[in-house]
């Protein structure tokens, strides 16, 4: 097990290096250091001396190879530095933003997983009946709607017309519940359909297995078959599917946070992209990659733990 983890961690290094290099090229392929400097300097026309001063101060005057190497080494050492636009310490901001993002995205995550399992079990139990068909139709409808529409429409109906929660804002001191209610409901509605369809497939795979027939033949009740035998085995793919996204919950949602004014990491990245704040984008992409790789390793470990048939060495 330990050897496996070590090997996976080593494999992560080239991936991280690749992502860092690619981000760097994508960023400076679309914008020159000078234009980034101008954006971050005053809105008035800065003098060439001011532009050069800014570029020098932020180290964008060095040869590309040196910049790239320095940026990569700094990232790997977790030295994120300061934001190009606001001069804020990026680590501090990431630590502040992680909380709100986790609160909202894990509420959505937990709600979606449990909600989806529940509905998927029902749909699987009544396979072929009107319940299954209705579930399928509703799911396909929900999946056909673009995420933006959920966010804007959800805000319009739940916050504006029905007034269940604030359109905007986040202040844990005056009660988390009211701020996360509407965003969570939107995230839930937008994400549950895909999960239901997926989990239903997992469940049906199990239902057609021989052991189910054996259990039925032995007279085990249908409810017990479903709850004890089928669900337990179907949980293996469900768990491995969900574990991969858990680390990413820290990053939150770009659009949802932006629309509801939740000061999480999603809106932090959104803002940085809008203002050409390369140092923040770089740090966030690095963090995202890291969490993703971590999620994948966790998946493999989870597999080994929940599925006795899988061995890792």
């Amino acid at each position: 097990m330990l050897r496996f983890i070590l090997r996976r961690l080593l494999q992560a290094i080239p991936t991280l290096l690749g992502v860092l290099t690619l981000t760097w090229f994508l960023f400076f392929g679309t914008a020159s250091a000078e234009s980034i400097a101008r954006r971050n300097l005053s809105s008035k026309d800065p003098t060439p001396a001011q532009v050069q001063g800014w570029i020098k101060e932020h180290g964008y005057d060095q040869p590309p190879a040196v910049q790239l190497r320095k940026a990569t080494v700094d990232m790997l050492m977790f030295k994120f530095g300061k934001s190009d636009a606001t001069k804020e310490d990026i680590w501090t901001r990431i630590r502040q933003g992680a909380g709100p993002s986790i609160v909202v995205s894990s509420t959505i995550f937990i709600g979606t997983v449990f909600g989806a399992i529940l509905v998927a079990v029902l749909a699987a139990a009544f396979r072929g009946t009107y319940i299954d068909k209705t579930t399928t139709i509703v799911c396909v409808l929900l999946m056909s709607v673009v995420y933006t529409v959920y966010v804007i429409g959800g805000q319009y109906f739940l916050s504006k017309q029905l007034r269940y929660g604030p359109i905007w804002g986040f202040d844990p001191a005056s009660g988390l519940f009211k701020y996360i209610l509407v965003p969570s409901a939107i995230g839930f509605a937008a994400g549950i359909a895909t999960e239901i369809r997926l989990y239903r497939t997992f469940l049906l795979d199990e239902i057609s297995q021989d052991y189910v027939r054996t259990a039925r033949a032995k007279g085990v009740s249908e409810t017990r078959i479903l709850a004890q035998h089928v669900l337990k085995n179907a949980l293996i793919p469900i768990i491995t599917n969900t574990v991969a996204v858990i680390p990413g919950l820290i990053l939150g949602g770009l659009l949802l946070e932006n629309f509801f004014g939740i000061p999480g990491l999603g809106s932090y990245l959104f803002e940085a992209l809008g203002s050409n704040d390369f140092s923040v984008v770089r740090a966030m992409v690095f963090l995202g990659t890291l969490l993703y790789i971590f999620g994948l390793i966790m998946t493999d470990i989870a597999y080994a733990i929940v599925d006795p048939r899988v061995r890792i060495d």
Partner: protein
Amino acid sequence: MMLRIKGLNGLPLLATAIALTHIGCTNNPYPAGESKRNVHYLNFGEDPKSLDPTFSFTTVESNVLDVITPSYFRYHYLQQNPVRLVLNLGTKEPTRTRTANGGEVWTFTVRKDLRFSNDVCFPDSKGRAITAADFIYAWKRMADPKIGYPLTGVFEDNVIGWKEYAAAFSQDRKGMADPNYDKPFPGVTADPNDPYTFSIHLKRPYPQLRFIMAMHHTTPQAREAVEHYNDEYARHPVGCGAYKLTSYTPKQRLVLERNENASPDIYPTEGDPGDREAGLLADAGKQLPLTDTIVFDMVRESTSSWNLFLQGYLDETTLNANNFQQAMASNGMLSPKMQEMGIELRRAQQSAVYYILFNMKDPLWGGYTPEKRKLRQAVSLVLDSQEFIDLALQGNGTPAQWMLPAGLFGYDKDFKHPYRVVDIERAKKLIAEAGYPGGKDPKTGERLVIYIDCAAITAAARTQYGILKRQIERTGIKVEIRSTPGSIFRDKLIKGEHQCILYGWFADYPDPENFVFLLYGLNAGPGKPNYAWYQNPEYDKLFEKVRDMDDSPERLTLLNQMRDMAVEDSAWIPFYHPEVVTMSHSWVTNTKVHPIARDVLLYRKIDNNLRAQKQLEWNKPVWWPLFAFIGLSIASAIPAAIVVRRRVNRKLRAGGGAS
């Protein structure tokens, strides 16, 4: 067993519903009870980049900063016709003395009762008294290239010793402190006999210095604060204004509270005709500010901020293309629903101009020969400002005849630009005379093309460029809109790689010099504001005179001559003067808009009791859809439950039969 399955479906929903009604679900985004206090709620569309008074420039930044860091002068809030400066931190009009070599010395005397707000950067956290030295320190910071004073170009050639003083700063240093601050700045000097007097030494007269002394860049600054906060100073300004910044979470919330150290200041007792009737003098003579706290919340999405305003959680908002349809009835008045809510709407022309500009370096559309002029004049003749304003700006603007907006010295309401009437036939004739009959190049037979560069990403902007294209194509010329990301667009502009753009200019101060300098030859160059790269030695000669003059009939004559030259060359096609439309709720008073001043929040008054009452009235949650949804979910589970029961029973029977 079966009941449990059914229960699982209904119970969480029911529990949520009960929880919702019991918690007292509210859509009020603020901490409980806060809206009942004397707080003024506003929003930012984007975060201020910096609140360092020396660096900051945008309107968003000024709205915050100008109530924290006042200056020697300010604009009279109510008397706006014309706008005029009044003393603020100064005690008397500056004296101006001509020097032997054609320069000028301005001497300023400041109030003796000024103190900085209390801040941890001072001993015992008590704000100290302000002297002329703090004003001089601010000027030293303006010269410091590391900070990036936006109007450096205006002063570096005019203030004595500026360039030398600026060069002595270390650009690579960490933090703000620099030994150069201990050295005297020959351009801005203290009076050895009076700690409340200082002088600015200029190489040539610069009447606009009065306006500069009303901008937050020249506010007195505390060296302790700058060196204490360093980079953080940009988020922690310390001043002597009516408000002080008490908390600032970037991209989230900024709170200003009344500054207990502020010097006495009263609401103006005189206004323009009509102000008394409009109730704007009801608070005349009262101590400023009239509101205890100002909260700026950062709401990026305009849909979100508009809805917050309609719910009564923002006191004011500006109207944009997205919410215009909702707010206005077809007769151009506020919609009946908004009127019923007591919302008030104001339009105010901004001290600004939008214009179409040609790059004079362009081989096809630039140049100074009669043929080239005719081409540009022809485009001018087909551009219909009024149609553009009606279609793209919902009527919020005035067609422009020349750069200068109304209210500025040199604005002539009777002036009619000879090429700013819509005359398509004449335009076609001019194009033919320029050698392109029918808008086609006779050599190749191809249609002439204008490339209009833009950074248009919003739907509203796309509409605008669509209208421009359609209007110009009436001449037979083809228009290509080249839309690029903002940073690339600016790059092109700076390097002069554009051909034609629609651009705007907003006055820094109400003087014609701040507009006509946009065509000054020495302002053409990489990153300089003459984006037309217009070069006319005669224009430049007149500009240099106008720049150094005080308002006089002679100055007006010169301005008109400059205008006539530029009109013939048509490097610029003046398009429209924009209007800003703002809305406020019935509980906000003293909402007069000022075309230049940004410290107007000092005068705002909030009736917080009325607000609390309206907020409650407008925001009662609607519960029936939630209960209907829950009811429906449970009802849909009932047939399922029946199926389960049937199945279970059947199984039992079948099992019994087998054994």
